[in-house]
């Protein structure tokens, strides 16, 4: 792994604690490093600094020096260099670390500033917390606990602004709750590159709005909901569904492309209510696409497979495994693995192919990249298939070689790991001419044609890892239990392997990883439990010659293409 050059460090002092931070670090971030929380609304680490909320006002000071000699002026009382404190508070978000900079966040002046801002933010706020969806994750609520007055001195009429404005298909705006921090405007302009939001009117009557006739409907619109510090922007999908404090959070990975945006799955009692981005500064920052957030809806889709079937009749797993082994024993087997399977599943898919003496194919799934967080490769884990040795070259479109092998009669049985073979390029005739074992989550032409159907799990129902376009291996965890009738892919695969004369392999992620680390060179130094939440980079040098499909996205530049161009 290549380490970036060590940044220049600057020592600052926050509430008496010294901390060395990289040059350019602002004092909100610097304070965080010594465990000091500087409350703020408009500041967001991934957006430009505007300094409009004024909540992060702190006292700043510089070490005193004699103006003439530049010698330090010492304080006889403490024996330390005196600090010249500025009489004016400064916003921590726009104050960058400077050598010797001192910051105080606990003085009466700072407290007074925060209380003042809190009072101002609340005078025209509707205080409708009981019916507000932001309750539980509202920064106004949070800071009111620390800096609220507890009663109101405001006896005038509150400003009236538009309520329940649909900004787009997924985002609802309540202007009376808006504190005009401009995070959503900056996000739309700077990250989504879709400049549709702005403020109209001025002063306290300033109103967030979309240009009349335009909509906030880009595929990143829900990030505005995430970063809205108050209840002004809410998700039409999640609105009024559940109080956030009842929800369990599970780390997961967005599977819609090889970007591998880090996510949190919010669930309660086996039901997923929403998916939000999880910060990973090397992958997705704090963002994710709207489309990725809605994938959870597939968990309970009508086409979800819920019963094991053998020859179209409902059956049990044991019989299905035996039926699959029976087909495998006849030879002429091909395995269609999936770029949507986890690393562990792909490892077992390879083992299955070996046991079945079958060639392994992978379904290519290419689209247009959006240059942000959806790459051209819509499989989340093609790199995993390469690393585990399931495939050695990039998958070609249309399963052409498999089709030819079926036509020639060389292949008589196809085991598909969740892939719809017709959608992947086989003709219905080709599909009809082979015996199919389908291990997957949703019904389709392939499951309908299959001799053996074994329902498996969605990404929300199991543990595992994916390797994204950066060759970063990232873990996802089980958020909700498996639905009745479905079995963990690892269990299914390991049982078929065993039944087909292959080795006995672990069918849980932890157990399997010992084997994976032993057999997969690129993962040799890793253990499942040691992969950090933000992932680990895998040595990708073995695949550097491949022409991957991805173009540039956030935090990703296609190395091979760059090199080729150079």
């Amino acid at each position, binding site marked *: 792994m290549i380490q970036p050059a060590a940044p220049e460090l600057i020592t600052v002092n926050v509430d008496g604690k010294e901390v060395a931070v990289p040059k350019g670090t602002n004092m909100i971030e610097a304070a965080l490093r010594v465990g000091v929380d500087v409350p703020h609304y408009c500041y967001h680490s991934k957006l430009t600094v505007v300094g*409009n909320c004024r909540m992060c006002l702190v006292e700043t000071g510089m070490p005193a020096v004699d103006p003439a000699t530049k010698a330090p002026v010492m304080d006889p009382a403490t024996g330390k260099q005196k600090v010249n404190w500025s009489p004016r508070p400064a916003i921590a978000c726009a104050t960058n670390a400077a050598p010797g900079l001192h910051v105080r966040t606990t003085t009466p002046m700072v407290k007074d500033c925060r209380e003042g*801002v809190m009072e*101002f933010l609340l*005078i025209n706020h509707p205080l409708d917390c009981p019916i507000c969806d932001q309750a539980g994750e509202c920064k106004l609520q949070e800071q009111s606990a620390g800096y609220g007055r507890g009663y109101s*001195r405001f006896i005038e*009429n509150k400003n009236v602004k538009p309520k329940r404005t649909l900004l787009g298909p997924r985002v609802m705006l309540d202007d009376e709750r808006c504190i005009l921090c401009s995070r959503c405007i900056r996000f739309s302009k700077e990250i989504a590159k879709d400049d549709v939001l702005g403020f109209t009117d*001025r*002063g306290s009557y*300033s109103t967030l709005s979309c240009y009349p006739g335009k909509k906030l409907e880009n595929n990143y619109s829900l990030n505005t909901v995430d970063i809205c510090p108050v209840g002004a922007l809410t998700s039409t999908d999640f609105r009024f569904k559940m109080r956030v404090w009842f929800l369990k959070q599970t780390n997961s990975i967005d599977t819609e492309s090889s970007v591998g945006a880090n996510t949190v799955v919010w669930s309660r009692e086996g039901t997923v209510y929403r998916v939000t981005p999880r910060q990973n500064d090397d992958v997705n920052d704090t963002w994710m696409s709207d489309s990725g957030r809605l994938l959870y809806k597939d968990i309970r889709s009508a086409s979800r497979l819920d019963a094991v079937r053998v020859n179209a009749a409902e059956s049990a797993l044991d019989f299905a495994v035996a039926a699959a082994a029976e087909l495998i024993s006849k030879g002429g087997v091909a395995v269609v693995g999936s770029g949507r399977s986890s690393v562990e599943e792909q490892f077992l898919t390879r083992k299955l192919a070996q046991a079945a003496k079958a060639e392994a194919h992978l379904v290519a799934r290419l689209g247009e990249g959006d240059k942000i967080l959806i790459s051209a490769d819509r499989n989340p884990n093609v790199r995993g298939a390469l690393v585990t040795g399931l495939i050695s070259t990039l998958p070609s479109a249309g399963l052409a070689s498999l089709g030819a092998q079926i036509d020639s009669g060389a292949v008589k049985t196809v085991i598909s790991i969740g892939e719809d073979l017709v959608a992947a390029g086989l003709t219905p005739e080709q599909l009809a001419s082979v015996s199919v074992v389908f291990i997957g989550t949703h019904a389709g032409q392939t499951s309908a044609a299959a001799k053996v159907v074994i329902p498996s799990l969605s990404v929300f129902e199991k543990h595992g890892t994916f390797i994204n376009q950066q060759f970063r291996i990232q873990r996802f965890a089980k958020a909700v239990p498996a639905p009745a009738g479905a079995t963990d892919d690892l269990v299914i695969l390991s049982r078929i392997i065993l039944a087909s004369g292959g080795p006995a392999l672990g069918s849980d992620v932890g157990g399997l990883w010992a084997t994976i680390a032993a057999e997969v060179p690129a993962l040799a130094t890793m253990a499942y439990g040691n992969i950090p939440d933000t992932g680990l980079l895998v040595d990708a040098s073995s695949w550097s010659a491949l022409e991957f499909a991805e173009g540039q996205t956030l935090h990703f530049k296609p190395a091979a293409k760059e090199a080729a161009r150079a």
Partner: protein
Amino acid sequence: MPAPEQHRLIFRHIDEPGYTNDLACYQRGGGYEVLKKAVLRKPEELMDEVKKSGLRGRGGAGFPCGVKWSLVDRKSGKPIYLVVNADESEPGTFKDRYIMHQDPHQLIEGIMISCFANKVACAYIYIRGEFPEGAKILEKAIAEARAANFVGPNIVGSGYGCEIYVHRGAGAYICGEETGLIESLEGKRPYPRIKPPYFPAVLGLYQCPTIVNNVETLCHVKHITDMGGEAYSKIGTPGNTGTRILCVSGHVQRPGYYEFEVGKCTMGQLLNEVCGGPLPGRTFKAVIPGGSSAKVLKFGERYKGKRKVGADMVDYDWGVEDIPMDFDSLAMIGSMGGSGGVIVMDDSVSMVEALGNINAFYSHESCGQCTPCREGSLWMKKITTRMVHGTARPEDGALLKSVADQIAGRTICAFGEACAWPTQSFIAKFGDEFKGYAQAKAAPRPEGTPELV
């Protein structure tokens, strides 16, 4: 002591019979001769003259012009812009109006000299939208000056070139704030920028080094260049050099504009002699000395302390009438010289209502970018409006002050102070009037008392 004579340097030709705003008239009086000589000198010399002159900005803050120029980043390799602040938006101020309408070439000559001194190749005059006629006059004057080779490429054969463009505002006080003005000039909402990092001298217009100077200030540059910084610095008083145009409005016999050597005329001389004193049967009650955001002064109150005279510290004990009209004296007694707008109120005025009027102005003009100003200015307006048109509570004065205290010093730009200082000073000096307003309001008013809110 009788009031000193006016010293009309900038306003020399204002209201002069027969004086017109065209180039020919300007040149008959020696116009552009200073520019012709200036371009033969080294720019650094001219900057030095301005530094020596001690000229302080006439827009409001009174910041030394030479220092402002010396802060400009000249190493970035980026173009340097000069932006003329012709927004004249501080209520009570109406001096630049007359310069631009009646003597535009004086401003253009000042701009061209300043641009030459600072190696500026492009200047913008940001003129308030409410001066449509002024904008036309300036555009015509620039065209004339361009035709005569005083503006544009290779001026008067010097090899130096500079363009001037007029840019009209559209009714926003905040555009008088230099970074708000820059944003407006860039075609954005005029939200003042945070400083750091966006100091105009380094990251101004189009993120290039930028000088923003007031109209009157740039006119002074012409005269400094003409007479030399040394000679200019002898006009006025130490630290408060040159002349200053004082704009008097409100309850005096002869409101108007008067140009004096800075600090040579006291408030009393200005109001009682120059402006003819209060209206018949009235007495002065309060005066705002430097535009409506300056802290109000109450007639009858005394200002005491020590001040520097030459090398010595001497005691002073002044009434409002004794205050010399200069930057330092007005700052010393807790207000400011600001933009030179003197607003006089006599005993017919209710201070609650006057503050209500001011609060309405600031809440209307707050850009709304940062919390304390946005919310505080409207809250103060709502309180004073309620006091006037609804129920006034004895505790409202204290509440107003507390709100103002939560604004000043905590905002992105100086608007925070501008909207808080009136409230703070009105309550500090006329607190009883706020406490007793409910009763005062119920009492019959003299015929003709103007409505203010």
